[in-house]
């Protein structure tokens, strides 16, 4: 890998993927901070992991099922009570496609 771990263009691309607007001053603050953190990760390169399986969860559970019973759920008005905008029992969002 190159010595520069993350470029400004890459930071901007990542921020877009993460759906976060960054101000110019945030970008200049974050870039060296992220750079030093990501650089630190190189410590892992010294470990040979070629025959090691990854761990994504620490206990052995998989496929946890429960019985398919109808239970009471949140009433619609309560479920919508924290929404920014609602209409006719729906969440309202800004246009997702151009008119």
């Amino acid at each position, binding site marked *: 890998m190159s010595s520069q771990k993350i470029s400004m263009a890459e930071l901007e691309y990542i921020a877009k993927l*993460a*759906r976060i607007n960054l101000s110019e001053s945030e970008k200049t603050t974050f870039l060296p*901070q992220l750079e030093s953190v*990501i650089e630190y990760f190189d410590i892992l390169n010294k470990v040979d992991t070629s025959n090691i*399986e990854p*761990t994504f969860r*620490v206990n052995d*559970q998989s496929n946890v099922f429960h019985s398919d019973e109808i239970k009471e759920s949140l009433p619609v008005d309560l479920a919508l*009570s924290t929404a920014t905008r609602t209409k006719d029992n729906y969440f309202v969002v800004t246009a997702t496609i151009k008119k």
Partner: protein
Amino acid sequence: MDFSTLTINQIRQGLLDKKFTSVEIVNFFLDRIKKIDPQIKAFITITDEFALNQANILDEKIKKGESIGKLAGSIMAVKDIYLTKDIQTTSSSQVLNGYIPQYSSTVYQRLIDEDAILIGKTNTDVFAFGASTESSGYFTTKNPWNLEMVPGGSSGGSAAAVATNLCHFALGTDTGGSIRQPSSLCSVSGLKPTYGRNSRYGITAMASSFDCPGVFGNNIEDIALVTEITAGKDIHDTTSVDNKVPSYSQNLNKVNLKGLKIGLPKEYFTGAIDPEVKEKVLAAAKEFEKQGATLVDISLPNTDLGIAVYYILIPSEISANMARYDGIRFGQAVTDATDIISYYMQTRGKFMEPEVKRRILIGTYALSSGYYDAYYTKAAKVRTIIKKEFTDALKNIDVILAPCSPTPAWKIGEKVNDPLKMYLADVYTVCINVAGVPGLALPCGLNSQNLPIGFQLIGNFFEEEKLLSLGHQFQQFTDFHTKKPQL
């Protein structure tokens, strides 16, 4: 009457014996909070009306001779990332300013069902991202032993509240040390249970394969009582396990210290460790030795990889978990965006605090195409190695003893501009989370500057009972846990 020094059982018994009422207890703590909290700022919300209402109902039950819960009348503070129905839950972020949850977290609800009284919601690093409470979107909590110092974090508000007797016990979460490290920095006891022992349901998610709800207390007896209520399978959290929950509080003297093998991992006593921390933690180990335990030098050679593994995996999980804060179903949002993508970007850009953004960005980077295998998969593989290191070590010894933090509390502001430095503060706690095993933090004295030092006992999966028994016995032959800050 000073209700703050009574244990949970003493409070309950006093109520049954009609020595005092729940309303008197609540008023005592509300007065105490009014006097002390402005200095330390442990609370984001004080739930005075809610607490008095609970107390009135409880007193009525006692008057009528009805049965009361196991935690009746004891005062609890709850980290503000636990959802509390009808009570604002902010996660110490402006994102959730004003958010009133429609349902409650399981762990909190189980305690309410046993008549514990909620006195308030405590400050934390924003969404529990931090080691000092300084990343809170509201304010920094002060260390009650020295108001210029951090209380540790992320559950710093809960630790400070217990340290100053503003409650009998407090809920926290430990994803990378957020119960054990502030316990150590504030001189209280705190349990990070095995991953899956306590339900995560209704707690704003940080890193789902790491998050562990747990409790802070003044003594192990109280922690054992609370944990036997919170622990156990929850249908709403598929990662919670249904292993039998032992009667922790009944088995506090169960483990025989004679012949017990305690491992001291050399990697936790070398390098950046403060000499006074090392001295006090080793002195605590000697106390066990005096009771007949054997101290064994052990090695956990991959300890130095813990921070890198942790700070790749947890931001990755964070970047996925934080996607829910889209400003549509809950949380603050901008009003002037013209299309949905700018709505997301502006909302998240405006309301998310810097540490939230940093961690999402690191995680998004580690998960992004081209880097996924180099960072995320690599870290997940090293996680396997670290986990095995703990379970292998615990085959030959009964328990591991180590410091919780390389240093006592540090000055507010000292590490805020250097995220890597702040992340390295977790060096003695994160590996336990990477492995998923339980850890119990206990106070073991003060340094020459009158700042607390703590240590942790680390056991194998689901060995909370053993840890609590050892911790309780330690608190019988020492009195470090009774020391309180002068305010």
